[in-house]
């Protein structure tokens, strides 16, 4: 990579963030609402990338963690009317518990087996929500009494600030010693262990970190939309979208996840006139990216820079 001096990379980042923060003065409320949702998706994708890209764990069920956070926060708000911050914190705790639950099999199982367990975790959560419809609203979904804000601009800024904070923390983590050790244990756990790193501890930490961010993002999404339903938060289709976003943006880049999510959601909004075929086109494009640019958008850009 033609290494940009660290300070100029920082400047570019800051400029992009400022430009994004000023968007409410330029674009319509509709586009703004689409972007707001896509920022939360960006956090989902980044959290997934930490697990997959770095720890090497194929998590087919990102929505298990997201859904735990979202539904816990929503139910607590519905039943006890606690302040939003408390609800989100409880949602994050539930997600961590879920992350630990997933980390357990991940330490014993490999590849497709673990992937299947995560898939089953989503299906079980989905079924549990339908069975306990009295509290969760079942298949119809539930509404929460509190929302983050009724002002679209404020909601957008909340989402943006959240995305930026998550991006900084996750990116920093991935570039730190922890990120390196995770990458090492993802690629060759035995060798990493032989070098004296505690693989188990790091993997569990990766699951917890991924879970915290997924859970908080899920909970905030609920308070942004004022509602939660299985189809919009937990369905396997949503999890697939998160995975597509992360792969589209570029594995092992963290920031690529956010980029991929924004591109993916804007693209599917732009293609909405196609109706049913919308999903078809989006999947086809994602497939083409996987076949021809397996490093993803950001990965490809970085590679191109490297070659120059």
């Amino acid at each position, binding site marked *: 990579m033609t290494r940009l001096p660290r300070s100029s990379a920082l400047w570019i980042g800051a400029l992009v963030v400022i430009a994004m923060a000023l968007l409410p003065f330029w674009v319509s409320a509709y586009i703004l609402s689409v972007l707001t949702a896509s920022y939360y998706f960006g956090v989902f994708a980044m959290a997934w990338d930490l697990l997959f890209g770095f720890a090497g764990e194929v998590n087919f069920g990102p929505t298990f963690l997201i859904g735990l956070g979202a539904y816990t926060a929503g139910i607590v708000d519905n039943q006890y009317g606690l302040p939003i911050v408390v609800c989100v914190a409880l949602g994050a705790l539930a997600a961590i518990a879920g992350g630990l639950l997933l980390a357990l099999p991940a330490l014993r199982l490999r590849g497709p087996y673990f992937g*299947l367990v995560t898939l089953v975790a989503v299906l079980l959560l989905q079924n549990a929500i339908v069975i306990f419809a009295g509290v969760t609203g079942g298949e119809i979904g539930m509404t929460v009494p509190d929302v983050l804000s009724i002002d679209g601009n404020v909601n957008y800024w909340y989402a943006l600030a959240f995305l930026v904070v998550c991006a900084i923390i996750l990116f920093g983590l991935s570039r730190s010693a922890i990120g390196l050790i995770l990458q090492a244990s993802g690629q060759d756990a035995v060798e990493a262990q032989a070098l004296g790193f505690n693989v188990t501890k790091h993997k569990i930490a990766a699951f917890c970190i991924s879970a915290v961010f997924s859970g908080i993002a899920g909970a905030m999404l609920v308070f942004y939309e004022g509602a939660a339903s299985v189809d919009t938060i937990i369905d396997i289709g949503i999890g697939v979208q998160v995975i597509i976003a992360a792969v589209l943006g570029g594995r092992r880049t963290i920031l690529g996840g956010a980029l991929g999510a924004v591109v993916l959601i804007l693209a599917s909004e732009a293609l909405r006139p196609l109706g049913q075929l919308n999903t078809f086109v989006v999947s086809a494009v994602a497939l083409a990216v996987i076949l021809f640019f397996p490093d993803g958008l950001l990965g490809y850009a970085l590679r191109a820079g490297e070659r120059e």
Partner: protein
Amino acid sequence: MLGLQILIDGFAIGSLYGLGAVGFTLMFGVSGVLNLAHGGIMLVAALIGWLAAGDLGLGTYAGTLIGILAGLVSAFATYFVVVRPIQRSKAIPREETEIFVLTGTLLWGIMIQVGMAYLFTDNPVTMRPLIGGIVNILGVRTPYNEIMIAALCWIAIGLLWVLVNRTQAGKALLAASINPRGLTLLGFELSNIYLLVWTIYGILAGIAGVLLASFLGLSSANAGQLTASAFSIVVLGGLGSVSGSLVAAYVVGYLETITAYLVAPTLRPIPALILLVLVVYIRPQGLLGRR
């Protein structure tokens, strides 16, 4: 009476599940590919078969054959458009091929599902039964079609057994699942073997799709569910183990039927999922898996 009913229905469903899962597990054993577009391929077979039998007026039997052919064609499309380019790509690191095949076939399956929903809507379609009539087995009214489906499944599985164990090509297939490198050293072209396994897989998935449409009915919304159930049956039985898959198919078929009849139809998939998680925790190689 109810017990016998469960016994009969569970057997038919288990046979269908088995047929669907056998091709899936064979493919994994031989070429290491987990095809997440599995449900999509069954769906294509069912919908095209239904179209040919009904609207095109070709009758049930011709429709069934055309449906199986459609399953075969879509299996080849999956191989040539998605799986082979990923396996041969130089940009994808070797150790990540597996996850790319998973993601690629997953996307491909979504494309098939959505494309089919666009062409055929997502109303469930039901093939006309292969044969009509009802027989009374010790007081349980059983459609001949149900017996016929179970029989057809076992004929297909039996033919597969003969093919794998008694023919030259089949033995090469078996050898490829044990040691692919050894096979290439003996002068076999591995890509021909992959082609053979995709052919077998396409036919089996096609038969399973058409028969499922004739037994329970099938809609494009089911594609993901079908993939998930084949995947879990195969893992339950042990990845790559054909006999394990058959045992697991009946275990899941009966568990689902028992739950549906005795507890509640809405809880139908849950016990099988819980069993799956338990088995994966306690015995990751599955019921009859090697390793």
